[in-house]
């Protein structure tokens, strides 16, 4: 009982301390969760390319980036949504729906560019449905997006049935998988970089972005501080729908196919990567450089393990374990941190008592 009451009402300290700003700038930047992920990415990348033969070839890098692209794309809006303490589980279904829409319209004789545009519009619409249900109707986003996860996927499967559309124009399929010279960097990375910069600007350098953090910390305080909570959330879900649809179009051209069950389960990988990148599931905490490093870390690890003939099931175990470890470790360290000073305090408080 005493334990819980002290944690609820901490004794007011005499001198105010600002632990965060009291440390120098380089420390604040380097000793962070995000930077730990970046370091882990560098260690894995360097370790893999030195110890595995041919891993450091441009071909490997090219495929790694091509595979990571949809996750990199969707992770951007997902980060913002998680920071605002919401969640979007329907992203993979929007990818599938955009993939199927593009395929079905192309199959019906539409020009492929127009079909892609329609898929993007549909993605915005899907995001708007999520956003409306969360903001206007006031439903929890977890329940809403579990529902739309099934709904959007169901529509995608319903449209094409067991059919699949192939034979997309070669111009687009080769453009999507093309690589800059011998560098191993695919063209599509340009798109990823542009979007990533846009999202970094939006999240970290605009009032809108600070509003997202404020909402994640405390929605009511944010509302009283003048943040338009509902509008912000709505925009985030629309952005998520738009980027997911874009990833769906990429998916279509990358694999040259449209099927109802494409990209099933992708939402799990995206959320795992974002959380691994240091975004808190409770909201209010996270940074995009950590998330991008998290996505690439998972991608590099998968690629490296595949190189040494580790099968996909073991890779799944590793990804799952990473996710659990990344979420459990902060509480573990906090527990450890609390344990050591408390033990010291107890010793200190006991000593005079025994003397007296």
């Amino acid at each position, binding site marked *: *009982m005493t334990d*819980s009451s002290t944690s609820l009402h901490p004794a007011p300290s005499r001198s105010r301390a600002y632990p965060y700003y009291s440390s120098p700038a380089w420390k604040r930047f380097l000793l962070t969760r995000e930077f730990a992920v970046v370091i882990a990415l560098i260690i894995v990348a360097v370790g893999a390319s030195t110890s595995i033969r041919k891993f450091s070839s441009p071909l490997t890098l090219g495929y790694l980036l091509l595979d990571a692209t949809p996750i990199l794309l969707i992770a951007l809006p997902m980060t913002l949504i998680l920071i605002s303490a919401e*969640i979007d589980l329907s992203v993979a279904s929007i990818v599938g729906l955009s993939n199927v829409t593009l395929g079905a319209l192309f199959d019906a004789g539409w020009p492929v560019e127009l079909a892609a545009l329609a898929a993007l519009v549909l993605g915005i619409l899907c995001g708007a449905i999520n956003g409306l*249900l969360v903001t206007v*109707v*006031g*439903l*929890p986003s*977890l*329940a*809403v997006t*579990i*529902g*739309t*996860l*099934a*709904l*959007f*996927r*169901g*529509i995608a*499967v*319903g449209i094409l*049935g*067991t059919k699949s559309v192939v034979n997309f124009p070669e111009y687009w399929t080769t453009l999507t998988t093309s690589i800059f010279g011998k560098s191993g960097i695919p063209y599509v990375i340009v798109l990823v970089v542009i979007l990533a910069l846009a999202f970094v600007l939006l999240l970290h350098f605009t009032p809108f972005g600070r509003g997202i953090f404020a909402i994640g910390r405390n929605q009511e305080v944010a509302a009283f501080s003048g943040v338009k909570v509902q509008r912000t959330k709505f925009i985030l879900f629309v952005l998520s729908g738009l980027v997911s649809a874009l990833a769906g179009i990429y998916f279509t051209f990358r694999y040259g196919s449209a099927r*109802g069950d494409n990209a099933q389960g992708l939402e*799990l990988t995206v*959320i*795992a990567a974002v*959380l691994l990148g240091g975004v808190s*599931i*409770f909201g209010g905490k996270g940074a995009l450089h950590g998330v991008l490093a998290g996505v690439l870390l998972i991608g590099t690890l998968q690629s490296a393990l595949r190189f040494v003939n580790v*099968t*996909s*099931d*073991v*890779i*799944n*175990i*590793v*990804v*799952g*374990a990473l*996710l*659990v470890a990344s*979420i*459990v470790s902060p*509480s*573990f360290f906090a527990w450890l941190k609390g344990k050591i000073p408390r033990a010291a305090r107890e010793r200190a408080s006991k000593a005079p008592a025994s003397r007296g």
Partner: protein
Amino acid sequence: MTTLISPARKNPAARAIETLVKSRETGIVLALLMVLVVTTVRSPAFLVSTDGFRDLLLTPAIFVLLAIGQAMVIITRNIDLSVGSVVGLTAYLTGRLFVDFPGLPIPVAIIAGIALGALLGLINGALIACAKVPALVVTLGTLYIYRGVDVWWVGRKPINASDMPRDFLGFGVSSFLNIPTLAIIAALVLVAVGWYMRTTRGGRELYAIGSDPSAATLYGLRVAKRVILAFVACGALTGLAGVLFAARYGTVDSQAGTGFELISVAAAVVGGIAIFGGSGSVLGAAIGAVLLLTINRALPLLGVQDFWQQAVVGALILGAIALDRVLALRRFHKLIEIRDNAND
């Protein structure tokens, strides 16, 4: 305050009727009956024939177990996304036991499946309750891990019907008094868990934890222990479902049970379990599972291609949570009104 609560003035019969009309379960039962009637009118074999009647009870049995387990976890304001992988692992364990130990008694296989499920649930619960991290993330992780272990274990040796004793497979489709055994098992579990959740202290504490975790802690409830127990129970029920899956379908490959977590969450939500815990009943979740699976089977007969089935499930989930919200708002306004009237 007397204006707020005055149930004693009504006579018991009126109160019972009012409860029946207002209860969430009645709504789902009505929806289920509607589906049954409409489909049976369109094609009588759906209900009247022996096969139709048997499938009506047999198909949902496994999902009723999953929905009950999921409901217990969601009531504590948690969620278990790993159930699909747990079904896969326990179903494969069952088959593997029969291959490795020919002549193994069936009850031993069932107990082994339940025990493995409970163990996997214990891992989930211990991580969540001890590290105080969200169930969504932990069970997302264990969804990967358990499925990875399953795929690795199955390798290139899936279990076929010929690997399992005929008695066991017969048990999967057997009936007692024309009622499928699996449905009887599911019903027994439903009665036991329903009784536990409704009347015992442990069950009520699960509701208390779900409605307000910090209040439950301050009140002195042992939140961590109860949450772990809920996850163990969910795991055990999922393990039982895995064993029944093996008995019912006879083949277990590495993808067995994939996506079942979505169906179990959907069944619970459609059945009136609030996603943020503290309300709903396992009976509702069980009826929710029956409703989903019945719709599933009814769609082709109603002329809707079964590809659209998942879209219907999604629409149902959204409809159910929107309905919950409307009812909650109405209750809230009514309480405010009563309070304002009392103050005047």
